[in-house]
């Protein structure tokens, strides 16, 4: 189990908590960095490491207010790793969206159609 990964948010990058011991997997706030590949690299590395020995049930929260298209591709990568984990253990995606934020809901719906995992949609 990799050491927990915690990244504080900035005005253009999200808050990240990857803590397998306490079963918290969350990305929240805003993601619109210019260099999304650079920012998400450590997240993807962590998840790849984690996928070797995941816990029984991984509940992954996406609680984003906003993300740019460059971040969308990186989120797609994260979901692909989670999809792989889902082949041997249970994985659930909680996709949060603000009331009235139709775009965030439809982004989640789009991913749920393309990724073979259970998605819960919840207003916050």
């Amino acid at each position: 189990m990799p050491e927990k990964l915690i990244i504080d948010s900035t005005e253009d990058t999200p808050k990240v908590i990857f803590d397998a011991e306490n079963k918290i997997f969350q990305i929240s706030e805003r993601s619109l960095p210019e260099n999304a590949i650079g920012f998400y690299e450590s997240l993807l590395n962590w998840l790849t490491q984690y996928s070797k020995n995941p816990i029984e049930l991984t509940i992954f929260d996406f609680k984003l207010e906003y993300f740019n298209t460059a971040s969308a591709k990186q989120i797609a990568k994260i979901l692909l790793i989670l999809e792989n984990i889902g082949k041997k253990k249970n994985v659930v995606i909680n996709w949060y969206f603000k009331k009235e934020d139709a775009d965030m809901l439809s982004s989640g719906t789009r991913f749920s159609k393309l990724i073979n995992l259970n998605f819960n949609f919840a207003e916050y």
Partner: protein
Amino acid sequence: MQNEHEKVLNFVLTLFKAMQKDNLGYVYRGRFTQDITDNILALTENKLEKEEQSAKIKKRVYSILVECLQNITRHQDDAKVDSPDSNGLFVIQKHDEKYFITTGNLVMNDNIDYIKNLIETINGLEKEDLKDYYKMVLEDGSLSSKGGAGLGLIDMARKSGNKLLYQFRPIDDKSSFFYLHTIPSLEGLDLKSGNKAESLNNIIDIHNTLNKKNILLVSNGPFNQESLMILLGSLEGQMTGTISHKKKVFFVVVEMLQNIVKHGFNADSNCLGMPGIFIISEHEGHYTITTGNYVNAYKYESLKNKIENVNNLSKEKLDEYFNKCLFDFEIDSSKKAGLGIIDLRIKSGNPIAYSFNKVSNEAYFFSLHTTINKE
């Protein structure tokens, strides 16, 4: 419609050139709220940090800014006139290592004589006398209901170390638009030279164009992630409408600005950021966002193909294409559009309007135009 777009796109290049000529950095036209004021200050601070060495100049420019912005806020409700000119104006530019700050607001014609006399009096005083005059006005009880009585103007003259330039543009028999032009510098300047007045006239011309098209904000680069974040902040403060509409506008702005940062062409390697122009205008709740930037000539064909390709797809095909690109992690080949362009097309619901103007053998000026309709 296409014709209308062409007109807009030609206008972008014209405005870009006009702003380049005068080094206009940032133009804001609209209501001045606390948020907007804070953002303009942050944006200028960011610009000063990058460009200006002298701490003294930095401080001067900053304190004059505060004074100018307060002046607009204080007077913006003076005239209850439903005219494009009821919006305040703020402009900052840099010329020959000097900063020029121009503010504008509507004034009633009855007040013009008072303002003129005051500025002429201030301009006629030497530095030492200004101090005394400031004290005198402060002690003389004749303060206006706004608490100003010209103290702001005296202060601006003191801080700038230069004469104040001004102009009144008549609107109708009741009101005029008042332009005030300040140049903070350490040593006094010879303002008799005609080019200062010319520069104010150029601003007035640009302002007329902004009024006609109801443009709220123009930023003339250089663009980088930092200036982008501040621009976004100033937009968030002033947009009206539903949350989802606002977010759409926000989204399109991010994609279009990041497009400049990522794919723009910078002939001047000393410049910290991409040269370009960003314009946002509003009409009855519909927002129009326009960007212009240089692109390397060898990218022209492929960029054009990408946009045409995306423009020709049906709604369903567009959706499929988006999904395909979302999971395509290969480096974009020439035919493939980036996710950003596809999403601009989806979010705006219209074909993407664009134009290319050849500016040299190595570069084109590329402009992009999107409208987000009110929901």
